[in-house]
């Protein structure tokens, strides 16, 4: 394991020096090398925490979880690029909970400076900030950071492994390593060896220097690689968490208080016990679990248990919740992350444009319902299988829930049937662990019904925004955005960590404050609401809200100015951020913007710079006899360095579909303190027939070389405003409230 010390030493040398002068975190903690969690097994030699050499190839251990975003393939390609293995020799697995798999990419999400400014600055993050993901063992998948965090780490893992293997061959041949070549899993010299033959000897050999290859020589990176999970996912052989199957296992489901956070005052299990196949009803304190011979019987029975639920401490219905949220405007802004020029003086000149927008709560509704398998074994150890975005946190929470030390808990992170931010919480694994505690010795699979998944989610917050702007002729001279919104980050962090950092709440203003519009007087404020509905991170987080507010409003300003909405945006952006202007120009050209305007059709444009990637979208809508159809969509994005164009195209497209699904008909509403929508018939996503066709362009101008924006989320924020703007173009009616299906008649 010695050769990967190099990696962390290199990354943290600068840091050690920076913090030695008495900064907040001890030098020891920061410079400490996280232990390699992998152990050698027959025919499998780990050379570092990310690379295992097998008899027939290499297994890459991915530090990020696969939820469909393709990250496992890209992380493996980063290793393979340096390691010189054929793509067919590469497998990928998710790593165990371990500090070594911390996500260095998260540092890109910790700044309150807009990224369009950060991206072109040299990558010299504050050294203390850079250490945060490691110190706090942030083994997290999220924030569109996977490739960013892995870019150097995974290439170094491949390069150090390669050099160690060469050193082993050099020793055998009595030559120096630089006389040897590597190719297709072999070290080639006067005699050639497979990596597997050399692996044992390579373990002890630390390469003296690890040069990374010049991008001009890349074979895999920058190319569309066949996804490593594609065959399994096309044959039903991919093992999702819900597919975990152990001999003798029982099947269970849970039912928790629909008045979220309320107590369970009592319950009568008798009616459930009448269902054939039901074995047990378990008191989980805040709800119940039913154990049966199969999941369906458990779900039927759970619905029959009579439960006396206590109340939640939020208002009874959605309408009253919006009143509560609106009240936040009466308090001073707590999150003002942009205040350019002098907004008040400019707005005092009068002639204002004003608008208010409203958006509902949203559920994640991943295709794979929440689930976890837990097995408390006779020897007192606990084994868990649960798709999750935070393995260390999940393992520790399970350990605490059943009174075990963390080292007695083994957590597996199988591939996930979608995440979209909804698998950050530890709840499913913890509840399964509690069920296992009551079934000591017997493995149990706990599956949420779709209804339970949807009504017990941690939602994207509802919000209200008020925007005011001023024009001088055709030029925007002032913009003041204000949002009133309960904080998803504070809500989630309080729940998961027991505290939330003070200071401004980026999530309530991101997508609004950080956009590259060169409006001279530009202020953007968040007013955090105290509404206590359970919230979480939903694909693109605050950007999903603020892009709708800001991009709808920019459109309204363009209309008031009598300007073309695309040209209006372009003009505001050209001097501020050229790569952002370039994606707008690109989407204009791809879509044939000028020619899209014709009778019976509407066109809308929207832009959002999020997760390091400026993204512009044009959507075409058509009035038909069956209602309005979304016909064609164009996306131009600039993630900087694009590691895999096929995966990026898929993510951009999928993210826009996700955003459009919510924009057309997504809403979680409350009545009697309970979520009303329970399944796909009343929380209806887009389907084949109402999804537009797509064309995607990937530009690579943003930032300094090596800047990488995220790709999993930036396609979502512009979707809703692009649709609202297209509907305005088509009908002359401005939809200021989501979902738009409430006001507009869409074809089914």
């Amino acid at each position, binding site marked *: 394991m010695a050769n990967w010390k190099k990696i962390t030493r290199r990354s943290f040398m600068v840091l050690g020096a920076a913090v030695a002068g008495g900064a907040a975190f001890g030098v020891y903690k920061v410079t400490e090398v996280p232990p390699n969690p992998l152990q050698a097994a027959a025919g499998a030699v780990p050379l570092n925490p990310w690379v295992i050499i097998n008899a027939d190839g290499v297994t890459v251990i991915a530090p990020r979880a696969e*939820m*469909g*975003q*393709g990250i496992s393939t890209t992380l493996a390609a980063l290793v393979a690029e340096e390691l010189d293995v054929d793509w067919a020799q590469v497998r990928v697995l998710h790593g165990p909970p371990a500090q070594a798999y911390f996500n260095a990419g998260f540092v890109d999400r910790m700044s309150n400076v807009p990224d369009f400014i950060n991206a072109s600055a040299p990558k010299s993050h504050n050294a203390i900030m850079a250490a945060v993901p490691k110190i706090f063992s942030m083994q997290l998948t999220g924030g569109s950071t996977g490739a960013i965090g892995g870019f150097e780490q995974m290439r170094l893992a491949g390069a150090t492994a390669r050099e160690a293997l060469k050193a082993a061959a050099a020793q055998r041949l009595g030559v120096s390593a630089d006389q040897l070549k590597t190719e297709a899993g072999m070290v080639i010299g006067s005699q050639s060896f497979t990596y597997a033959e050399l692996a044992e000897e390579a373990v002890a050999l630390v390469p003296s220097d690890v040069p990374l290859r010049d991008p001009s020589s890349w074979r895999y990176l920058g190319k*569309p690689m*066949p*996804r490593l*999970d*594609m*065959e*399994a*996912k*096309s*044959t*039903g*052989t*991919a*093992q*999702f968490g*819900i*597919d975990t*199957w152990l001999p003798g296992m029982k099947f269970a489901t849970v039912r928790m208080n629909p008045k979220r956070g309320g107590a369970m005052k009592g319950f009568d299990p008798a009616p459930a016990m009448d269902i*054939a*196949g039901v074995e047990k009803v378990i008191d989980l304190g805040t709800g119940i679990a039913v154990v049966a*011979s*199969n*999941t*369906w019987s458990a*779900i039927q029975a759970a619905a029959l248990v009579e439960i006396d639920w206590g109340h939640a401490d939020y208002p009874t219905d959605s309408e009253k919740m919006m009143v509560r949220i609106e009240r936040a405007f009466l308090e001073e802004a707590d999150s003002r992350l942009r205040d350019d020029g002098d907004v008040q003086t400019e707005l005092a000149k009068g002639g204002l444009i004003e608008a208010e927008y409203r958006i509902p709560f949203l559920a994640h*509704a*991943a*295709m*794979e*319902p929440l689930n976890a398998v837990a097995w408390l074994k006779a020897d007192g150890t606990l084994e868990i299988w649960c798709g999750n975005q935070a393995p260390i946190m999940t393992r520790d929470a399970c350990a605490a829930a059943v009174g075990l030390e963390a080292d007695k808990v083994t957590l597996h992170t199988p*591939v996930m*049937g*979608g995440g*979209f931010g909804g698998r950050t919480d530890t709840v499913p694994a913890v509840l399964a662990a509690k069920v296992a505690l009551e079934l000591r010795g017997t493995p149990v699979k706990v*599956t949420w*019904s*779709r209804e339970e998944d949807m009504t017990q989610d941690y939602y994207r917050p509802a919000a209200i925004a008020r925007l005011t702007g001023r024009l001088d002729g055709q030029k925007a001279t002032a913009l003041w955005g204000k949002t009133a919104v309960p904080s998803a980050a504070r809500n989630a962090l309080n729940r998961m960590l027991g505290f939330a950092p003070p200071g401004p709440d980026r999530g309530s203003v991101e997508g609004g404050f950080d956009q590259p519009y060169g409006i001279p007087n530009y202020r953007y404020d968040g007013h955090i609401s105290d509404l206590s509905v359970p919230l979480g991170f939903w694909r693109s987080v605050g950007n999903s809200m603020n892009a709708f507010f800001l991009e709808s409003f920019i459109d309204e300003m363009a209309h008031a100015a009598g300007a073309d909405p695309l040209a209006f945006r372009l003009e505001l952006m050209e001097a501020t951020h050229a790569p952002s202007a370039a994606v707008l120009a690109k989407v204009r050209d791809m879509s044939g913007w000028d020619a899209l305007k014709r009778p019976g059709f509407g066109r809308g444009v929207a832009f959002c710079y999020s997760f390091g990637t400026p993204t512009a979208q044009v959507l075409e809508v058509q009035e038909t006899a069956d209602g309005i159809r979304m016909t064609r969509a164009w996306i131009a994005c600039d993630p900087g360095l694009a590691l895999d164009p*096929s995966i990026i195209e*898929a993510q951009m*497209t*999928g*993210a826009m*579909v*996700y955003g459009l*699904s919510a924009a057309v008909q997504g809403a979680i509403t409350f009545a009697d303190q309970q979520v009303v929508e329970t*399944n*796909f*018939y009343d929380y209806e*996503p*887009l*389907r*084949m*027939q109402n*999804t537009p*066709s*797509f064309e995607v362009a990937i530009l690579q101008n943003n930032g300094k070389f090596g800047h990488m924006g995220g790709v999993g989320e930036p396609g979502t924020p512009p979707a809703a405003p692009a649709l609202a703007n297209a509907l305005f173009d088509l009908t002359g009616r401005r939809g200021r409230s989501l979902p738009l299906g409430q006001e507009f008649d869409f074809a089914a």
Partner: protein
Amino acid sequence: MTIQLTVNGAALTVDLPGDVPLLWALRDGLGMTGTKFGCGVAACGACTVLVDGAAVRSCQMPIGEVTGQITTIEGLGQPGNLALIQQAWIKHQVAQCGYCQSGQIMQATALLAENPAPSDSDIDAAMQGNLCRCGTYPRIRAAIHEAAQMMKAG
């Protein structure tokens, strides 16, 4: 209660109550987890299997009432022995999370058996019951057209 099912050509026995839907007999009773649970109410198509060649939602079919030959994704083709449609799926790199894809592939298989050269609107009509939260619809469409071409070419 012991029930006989013919799955992918094999006669199998499950010991579950007769009102348990086929989906759960496959997944929990037989450990055949390729067929997925998404909604339980015929709203998503993740559980789609073929019964005598016709696509059905297995979450809606009590095992006590199943008559006929059941084909699941496991019976269509496996790694190393892929069905044409699976080859098309791989060529177009359709799957993202992949969770809906067993159902999508089974539904598309039934479509192509009935209509070897489906138009876009034929595809819309046949596939409308199959949700994909990852939004892979454009690539599903392309893969179905591709599979139709491959089948025509033999």
